[in-house]
C-alpha cells in the first residue's frame, strides 16, 4: 500500500514512545551505568571502564552458558519448526474437529511458565511421575535430577510440548490463506504431494514461518522459568542457560558490574540475530508484494 508522508504521525506514536522509554530505556541505561562502574558499597560508584566486559569475555562460565544456550536454541528450532509445519499440514481444515484441535493445541501456550515446569516435574519424577515411573519400570535409567542426558532430553521434550503448537498454529493460518485455485492447478499438472508442499505450500507460508522462527528463537534464547523449576540449572551446571546464570549473578550474588556487562552482551547477541531475521523477513515481504 502507498503510504503518505506525514510527520504529524509522530503524535500518534508519542504515547508508545513515552511508555517504552519509561519501561525500557531507563532500566537499560541503569544496566549500562552498572556495567562501567564499580562499587565498594554505600552507593559510592567509580568509573571502571571496560573492565567488567573484559572480565566477562575472559570468563569460562559465560562462554559455557552461551554454548549451552546456542545448543538448546538450535535443537529446539530444528525440532519445532519442521514438526510444527508437519502438524499444521495434518490438521483438519474446518468444522468441529478443527475447533477441537485449535483449542487443545492452544492450551499449553496459556499455562504460566512455572506451571509448565511444575507439570513436567510432576510428570517426569521417578517416584511419582507417569513418565519417569514408566521409563524406570521399563528398565531405562532415567532421572533428570542426576543424569545429564535425561535432564537435557526432559527440557527439550518439555519445550517441544510447550511451543510446537505456536509454530503449528501460525503455519496453519498461513496454509488456510492459500486459494484453492493453486491446488487445482497442481492437480491438473499431476504434481506429487511433495511437490505441492515444496512449490505451493512452503513458499506461501514462508512469511509466517519466519515470524514463528523469530519468536521461537527469541523466547528459547531467553528461557528461564521452565528449566529453573524443573532442573534448577543442574545437574551441576549442565542446564544453566544464559538467563539462569544471569539471574544467579545479579540477584543471587549481587555482582552488579559483571552481571550488567553480561546483560549487555546477551542483549546484543539477541539483537544481532533478530536483526538478520527481521531483514530477511521484510525482504521476503517486499518480494511478495511485487
Amino acid at each position, binding site marked *: 500500500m502507498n503510504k503518505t508522508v506525514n510527520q504529524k504521525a509522530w503524535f500518534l506514536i508519542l504515547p508508545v514512545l513515552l511508555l517504552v522509554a519509561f519501561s525500557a530505556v531507563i532500566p537499560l541505561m*541503569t544496566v549500562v551505568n552498572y556495567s562501567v562502574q564499580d562499587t565498594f558499597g554505600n552507593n559510592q560508584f567509580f568509573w571502571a571502564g571496560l573492565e567488567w566486559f573484559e572480565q566477562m569475555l575472559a570468563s569460562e562460565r559465560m562462554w559455557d552458558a552461551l554454548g549451552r544456550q546456542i545448543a538448546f536454541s538450535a535443537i529446539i528450532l530444528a525440532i519445532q519448526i519442521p514438526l510444527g509445519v508437519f502438524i499444521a499440514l495434518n490438521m483438519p481444515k474446518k468444522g468441529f474437529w478443527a475447533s477441537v484441535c*485449535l*483449542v487443545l493445541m492452544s492450551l499449553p501456550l496459556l499455562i504460566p511458565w512455572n506451571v509448565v515446569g511444575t*507439570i513436567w516435574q510432576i510428570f517426569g519424577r521417578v517416584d511419582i511421575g507417569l513418565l519417569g515411573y514408566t521409563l524406570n519400570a521399563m528398565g531405562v535409567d532415567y532421572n533428570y535430577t542426576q543424569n545429564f542426558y535425561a535432564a537435557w532430553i526432559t527440557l527439550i521434550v518439555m519445550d517441544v510440548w510447550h511451543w510446537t503448537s505456536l509454530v503449528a498454529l501460525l503455519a496453519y493460518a498461513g496454509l488456510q490463506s492459500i486459494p484453492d485455485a493453486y491446488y*487445482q492447478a497442481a492437480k491438473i499438472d499431476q504434481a506429487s504431494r511433495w511437490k505441492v508442499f515444496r512449490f505451493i505450500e512452503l513458499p506461501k507460508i514462508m512469511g509466517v514461518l519466519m515470524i514463528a522462527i523469530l519468536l521461537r528463537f527469541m523466547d528459547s534464547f531467553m528461557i528461564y522459568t521452565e528449566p529453573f523449576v524443573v532442573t534448577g540449572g543442574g545437574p551441576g551446571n549442565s542446564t544453566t542457560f544464559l538467563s539462569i546464570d544471569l539471574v544467579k549473578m545479579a540477584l543471587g550474588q549481587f555482582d552488579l558490574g559483571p552481571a550488567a556487562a553480561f546483560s549487555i552482551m546477551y542483549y546484543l547477541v*539477541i539483537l544481532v540475530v533478530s536483526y538478520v531475521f*527481521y531483514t530477511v523477513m521484510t525482504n521476503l515481504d517486499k518480494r511478495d508484494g511485487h
Partner: protein
Amino acid sequence: MSDMTHTIPKARSFGLPKVNGSAVVMSLYLLFLLLPIYWLVMMSLKTNSEILNTFTLWPRDLTFDNYLTILTDASWYTGYLNSMTYVVMNMVISLAVALPAAYAFSRYTFLGDKHLFFWLLTNRMAPPAVFALPFFQLYSSVGLFDTHIAVALAHCLFNVPLAVWILEGFMRGVPKEIDETAYIDGYSFPRFFVRIFTPLIASGIGVTAFFLFMFSWVELLLSRTLTSVEAKPIAATMTRTVGASGIDWGVLAAAGVLTILPGALVIYFVRNYIAKGFALGRV
C-alpha cells in the same frame, strides 16, 4: 478468498490425500499434549499419601481437599485476583497506546519510522532477566514496588511492541479509501477511529488481546521480582507449597490446574477469532 472455498467444494479433498493418516498424526500429537495435563489433574485429586506411597493411574481415594485448601485460604486465592488484576491492566494500557501507534505505522511514512518500528521490536527481544534488577530499583524508587500497576507497566516492555506489531498487520489489510471517505464525510480523526476504524479491525483486536493476555499471564520472572505481598501473583504463591515436610504435591497440582483454567476459558471464547484473525492479519 473465503467465498471461493464455498464455490469449489471438491477442491478440499486434494489437500488431504490421506484423511486417516492425518487423524493418526493429530491423535498422537494431542495425546502427547494432554498426557502431562492429565497427570497434573489426577495428582490434584489424590491425597498426598496416595501420591507418595502408591503409583496409580487414577485416584483410588478421590479427594477435593487440595482444591478446598486453595479456595478457602485467602493467601492462595488473592494470588489469582492479583494476577488477573495486572493482566487486565496491562491489556488495557497496551491496547490504548498501541492502537494509535499501529495506525500511524500502517498509514503514514515519517522520519525514522522503520528504525522506530525495529527499535520497538527489540524490546520484545529483551530478556526479562536483564531487566529484573533495574526494574526492581526503578519501581522501588518511585514507590510503586509491590503494586499491580508496576507489574502491568513492566509487562508493557514486551507486550506493547507485540501489540503494535500484530495490530499493524491487521490495519494494513483495511483499505485506505475507507479513511479518506470518512474524512470527506466530515469525520474528525478521533471519531473516525472509534466509530468506523475500530469495529473494522475487531477480530485483530481480539487476537491481540489474546496474545497480550497470554504473555502477561504466563510471565513469572518480572512479576515475582516486582511484588512481595500485596500484589503477589498466583504463580509465585505456588512456591509456598515447599514446606518443612517437603513439597505438598497435591496442593501444588491443584494450584497448577487452577492456573490453566483462565487460559482455557479465554481460548474457548476466542477460538473462532484465532483462526479467522490469524488468516486475516499479519500472517
